[in-house]
């Protein structure tokens, strides 16, 4: 925290203060504007400022300063009829006060290095069940963790309730059911093959039907019209015409009232209980007949299917996607999906992408592939897929293939379809072709038995005789020991488990059912749910050298305890895997530095480290904003669901790449390479991706890509899906990259209303912030950085021009008001260097890698130790940076320095 004051722009008087304090110079503002009412004589509102200490050392003093901050921000004080402070002085005052308040809150809320015992959070709980039982279960019904800005590992924010205890037992039961199902289905094989051309006869028949129905409908219409023309029907027909506004099809709906008009059913129109005339009227239009005729005229429809657009309701005819329902009686397990596919010769590059996902209507895209195969030489894609007991309903077990972005939403699909019709009179050209799709179950017989089952050593079906009591007791003991991460269960506890099992058996349960029920209780027990650390049994505080126990930690707390070997292994595993330690880690002597380092590297190399990376990166960089809103697809048609998924993946894949190769943290500020897949390669216009996944690609010299500030998802987050938000972006850069977080947005600041309804450039609009001291105090730092990033549009594409169109009184865009302007990225840091464009802004930020390293270190410590950062952590943060600096801020060095620190070894 202190170092936040070291860098860049803050008042130097804050620099050496041990406690957060307002600089002495601000007393002047008090004296001139406040003391006459809030001083020793008058004490309006029983509030005095003259005796307010500048140094904020207690909650009471902090509350008083907060009142001052609020009153100034809202403009309530000084009262409007009194003399007002000069804008610059007020802005400086507010700037300092807001920052001092943030620092004060932190000091006053400092946990002084104390780590609160915590339960497993939702992710860890899920991973722990996976490691124990070999299954993935859906834990969405558990309440979400974290919130309030802290990491989801911070124990003091992780709570427990009655409902949760019951949910844990229910989820544990579910996990056991799933695990038993996997074990019993271990050797089952299944395969389902679907040929694309299955669609073709359906389309052919539909074309025939449409032509025929149109003819029949015309005949019926003629017959109704004829009856309507009869002179004797004149009166009734006129009456109906008046009712239906002289609308032809609505008149025909009333055929039954017109004597002599035939029943549509006699022409073959039966709408199953609804008005048959509606069906006849609809058939007259033969909607999308031309598109369907175009479809069956395509080459290759006898060998496969094209992926087109939606025309009719999918239950009637579907040429938009291929859907494959995994049979309901297929067991849980690992599956592999194969797709043989091609793109037609003249398919445009942007239309060569295939989305694979589950449930076409809700459109959950799992993967996107670029189709490089040709009609002569199609390619086969392989997609691994795990089906669990959660994949029970049609909604989550029907797989689909669709052209990327062709019908993500009805609105978007309709728009693209209408554009094509305008162009060619038919609809979007058919370019993606699927020969077949198949799904096959991969037997798990060769996988190692999960440790929970290995510990159980009991029959998993009721064909074998029920286990004897001795056997059972031993099995419970072994299972609980495994579940409790190596701690053997107390004997009384096992007694109770035995009694539970017996009660279930007496109540009529078969042995396996009683077993599952009993084990589910283990999975709701606190020794499973909590990561308790009691310290090494042999440890006494005297053994720890004083300077280490006290001075280095900055706290004199003799209760600091060294972790026992198993506890350290657990802490390490939950840090780097968000999962329990495996057998090898439990065996390792982590008190030896070289063993600890080797194990740390092994853990980071293991695929389970994804558990750390995904969760940490998401929370550290605040990526939840990516899912907050949808992009406006009319403005950004290329940023479809598949692209958004890929863009989000880029952040994680890039950091995974850096971690894997122990590259420098600096690469996130500026890099000459990107880690992208084919979807992004196309989106960014960067050639060179060879495989189907993410890979490192070198950038051309003048590319704005490379590093976090070159990523589409980061810029998408810094907007609302429609327009960019320089404020959001600037604040994010200050918060995450420059380690200079702006104070939280103050409440009740009067809005700037004089610009409402005016058509202005973004910069003009935001510069209004500078007029008002309340706004300027923060925005003079935030906004300039945002201006420098304006070359990226709300979907992260590079642009040189922007436009704005005001809405008219009816809320519709008014084209007459449209204003266009070239992007002007030049600006300057507040009291800092200026920049001319994005590239020079990026270069300045790149020189601040120490600040970035600090931001990263703090996040890492908080995540790993499960407690908020405090002032006492300053030496530790410095250590991490010093260590890492020796290797050019290589990412793993931070982690090594952290896991070998005293803090990581003590509780």
């Amino acid at each position, binding site marked *: 925290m202190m170092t936040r004051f070291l860098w860049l722009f803050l008042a130097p008087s804050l620099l050496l203060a041990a406690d957060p304090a307002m600089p002495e110079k601000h007393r002047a503002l008090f004296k001139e504007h406040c003391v006459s009412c809030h001083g020793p004589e008058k004490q309006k509102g029983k509030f005095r400022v003259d005796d307010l200490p500048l140094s904020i050392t207690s909650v009471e003093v902090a509350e008083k300063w907060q009142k001052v901050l609020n009153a100034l921000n809202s403009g309530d004080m000084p009262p409007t009829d009194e003399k007002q402070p000069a804008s610059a002085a007020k802005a400086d005052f507010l700037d300092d006060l807001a920052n001092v308040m943030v620092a004060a809150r932190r000091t006053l809320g400092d946990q002084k290095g104390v780590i609160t015992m915590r339960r497993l959070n939702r992710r860890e709980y899920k991973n722990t069940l996976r490691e124990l039982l070999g299954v993935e279960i859906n834990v969405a019904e558990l309440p979400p963790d974290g919130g309030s800005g802290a990491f989801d590992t911070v124990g003091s924010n992780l709570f427990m309730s009655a409902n949760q205890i019951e949910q844990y037992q229910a989820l544990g039961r579910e996990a056991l059911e799933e695990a038993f199902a996997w074990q019993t289905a271990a050797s089952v094989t299944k395969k389902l093959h679907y040929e694309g051309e299955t669609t073709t006869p359906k389309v052919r028949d539909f074309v025939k039907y449409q032509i025929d129905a149109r003819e029949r409908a015309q005949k019926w219409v003629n017959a109704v019209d004829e009856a309507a023309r009869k002179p004797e029907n004149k009166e009734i027909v006129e009456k109906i015409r008046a009712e239906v506004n002289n609308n032809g099809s609505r008149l025909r709906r009333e055929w039954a009232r017109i004597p002599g008009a035939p029943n549509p059913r006699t022409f073959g129109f039966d709408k199953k209980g609804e008005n048959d005339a*509606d069906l006849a009227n609809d058939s007259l239009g033969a909607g999308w007949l031309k598109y369907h005729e175009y479809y069956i005229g395509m080459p290759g429809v006898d060998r496969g299917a094209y992926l087109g657009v939606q025309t009719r309701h999918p239950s009637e005819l579907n040429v938009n996607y291929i859907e494959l329902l995994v049979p309901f009686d297929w067991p849980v397990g690992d599956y592999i999906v194969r797709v043989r596919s091609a793109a037609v010769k003249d398919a445009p590059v942007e239309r060569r992408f295939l989305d694979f996902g589950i449930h076409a209507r809700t459109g959950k895209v799992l993967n996107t592939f670029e189709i490089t195969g040709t009609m002569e030489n199609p390619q086969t894609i392989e997609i691994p897929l795990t089906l669990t007991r959660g994949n029970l309903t049609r909604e989550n077990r029907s797989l689909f293939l669709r052209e990327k972005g062709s019908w993500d939403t009805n609105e978007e699909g309709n728009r693209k379809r209408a554009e094509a019709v305008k162009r060619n009179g038919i609809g979007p050209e058919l370019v993606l072709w699927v020969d077949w799709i198949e799904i096959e179950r991969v037997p798990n017989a060769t996988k190692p038995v999960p440790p929970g089952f290995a510990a159980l050593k009991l029959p998993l079906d009721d064909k074998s005789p029920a286990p004897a009591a001795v056997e059972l007791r031993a099995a419970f003991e072994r299972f609980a020991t495994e579940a409790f991460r190596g701690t053997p269960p107390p004997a*009384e506890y096992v007694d109770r488990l035995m009694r539970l099992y017996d009660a279930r058996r007496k109540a009529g349960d078969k042995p396996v059912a009683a077993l599952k029920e009993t084990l589910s209780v283990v999975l709701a027990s606190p020794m499973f749910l*909590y990561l308790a650390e009691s310290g090494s049994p042999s440890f006494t505080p005297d053994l720890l050298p004083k300077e280490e126990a006290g001075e280095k930690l900055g706290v004199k707390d003799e209760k600091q305890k060294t972790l026992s070997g198993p506890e350290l292994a657990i802490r390490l595993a939950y840090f780097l895997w968000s999962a329990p330690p495996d057998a090898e880690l439990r065996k390792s002597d982590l008190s030896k530095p070289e063993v600890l380092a080797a194990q740390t590297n092994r853990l980071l190399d293991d695929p389970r480290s994804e558990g750390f990376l995904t969760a940490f990166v998401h929370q550290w960089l605040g990526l939840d904003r990516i899912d907050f809103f949808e992009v406006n697809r009319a403005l950004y048609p290329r940023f479809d669901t598949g692209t958004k998924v890929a863009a989000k993946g880029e952040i994680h894949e890039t950091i995974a790449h850096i971690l894997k190769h122990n590259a420098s943290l600096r690469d996130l500020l500026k890099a000459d390479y990107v880690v992208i897949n084919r979807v992004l390669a196309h989106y960014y216009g960067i050639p060179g991706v060879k495989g189907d996944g993410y890979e490192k690609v070198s950038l051309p010299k003048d590319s704005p890509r490379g590093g976090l500030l070159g990523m589409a998802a980061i810029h998408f987050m810094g907007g609302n899906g429609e327009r960019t938000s320089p404020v959001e972006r600037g604040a994010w850069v200050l918060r995450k990259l420059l380690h200079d977080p702006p104070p939280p947005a103050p409440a009740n600041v009067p809005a700037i209303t004089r610009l409402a309804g005016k058509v202005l450039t973004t910069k003009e609009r935001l510069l209004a912030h500078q007029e008002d001291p309340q706004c300027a105090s923060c925005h003079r730092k935030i906004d300039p950085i945002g201006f420098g990033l304006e070359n990226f549009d709300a979907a992260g594409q590079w642009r040189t021009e922007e436009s704005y169109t005001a809405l008219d009184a009816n809320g519709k865009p008014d084209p007459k008001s449209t204003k266009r302007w070239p992007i002007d990225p030049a600006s300057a840091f507040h009291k800092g260097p200026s920049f001319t464009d994005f590239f020079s802004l990026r270069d300045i930020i790149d020189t601040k890698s120490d600040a970035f390293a600090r931001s990263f270190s703090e996040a890492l410590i908080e995540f790993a130790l499960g407690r908020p950062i405090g002032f006492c952590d300053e030496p530790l943060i410095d250590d991490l940076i010093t260590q890492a600096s020796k290797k050019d801020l290589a990412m793993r060095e931070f982690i090594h320095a952290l896991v070998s620190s005293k803090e990581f070894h003590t509780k």
Partner: protein
Amino acid sequence: MKTRRRFLQSNTSLIALPALESLGFRRFASAATPAAPPKRLVFLGFGWGITTETWFPDIKQTGKDYTLPEGLKPLARHKADFSIVQGLWNKYSNEGHWGSTMWLTGANRFAEPGQTFHNSISADQVAAAKLGMDTRFASLQLNGSENAEASGHGPGLSMAWDVSGKPIGGHKGPVEAFHRLFSKDTTPIEQQKAMLAQKRSVLDTVMENAKAMQRGLGKNDRAKLDEYFQGIRDIETRLAKDEQWIGVPQPKAPIPQPQEGLAGKEEIKIMYDIILAAMQTDSTRVLTYRQPVSTLLTSIGIKVAPHDMSHYHSTMGEKLAASQQRDLVQSELLAGLIDKLKATKEADGSRLFDHVALAYGSNIRTEHNLDNCPTLLTGGGAGIKLGQNIVAPKDTPLCNAWLTLLHGIGVNAERHGDSSGALKEIVM
């Protein structure tokens, strides 16, 4: 068992009482008069909405002096005793066929990243957590006897969703509901007790584990583990409540057992009688009823399919007529229920109507329109403005109305769903 009893006594006094002395039982067994009649909360939901043009009063005629629109005419005799509230919606709702799924929750189905469905607690369940402590049923969920999809209600097992957003089951049709309320529990008492004992045995086991763990912990961590102990205590409290009612005879039904096979209009009418009977016998104080719409239409001779009816805009004609007729019948049924609420007397002589807060409406206006959700509020229980056409600013959270009802019946929730505060327009 001994351990747990000691544990309970040391922590709360109420649940350590012998079962037969519990409040609910004593009142029931001796028919002693309670001091003041309890508050009740009732939600009646119909899936496919109403006819926009003829159900809503003119938004220019706000307050008491408004002309009753055609669709509400059957309610004319109660005009001073209900309010129509316009301008409310659930901003996250996006499914045109889900008239009830999020009606009482205001949830965002996509709130959980990666999940295609998410819901949160419904307003009735918020109330049940408080009003449900002393009655046999904390709440009662009633459903139409037909398939709820056909009536435009959307996913869910009833209109109620629990604290973690999971669906709560409901009783299908009047016969099932009647039996639940007034027939003897067929599970042998011994078995009921055994099931309870087993649940307690599970608690004893995890408690044993918690205590063993507690021994090695420092002060801070013990405090953290206390949350777990508190959780166990809360489950105990619930079990203790269940136990109180084991073997307590069901109240005598104030109405005869309904006929089998009732559908549509007749079914709703009888269900309203059951709702009344449930309140009269104080079996529960919180009720929801997911009304049938599809069979309502058939029962009054309408052949238009219900979904099609709600799309009357494209064709008008018989679809519009069906929609309007549906409004009339529903209003007529509601008027009948209000008659009975007014006629039923509480133990202190006041009208049941004065202690009930009742909301009647749907998340769907008509077609796939999810704004201006039709909302009719009645009953004196929540102390809100009655007899008015109330027009809230467009797109006010519907949950503001629910929050206000909750406050009115004494449940002091801070917020509900996406509420932004109480609905000041209906507060007296």
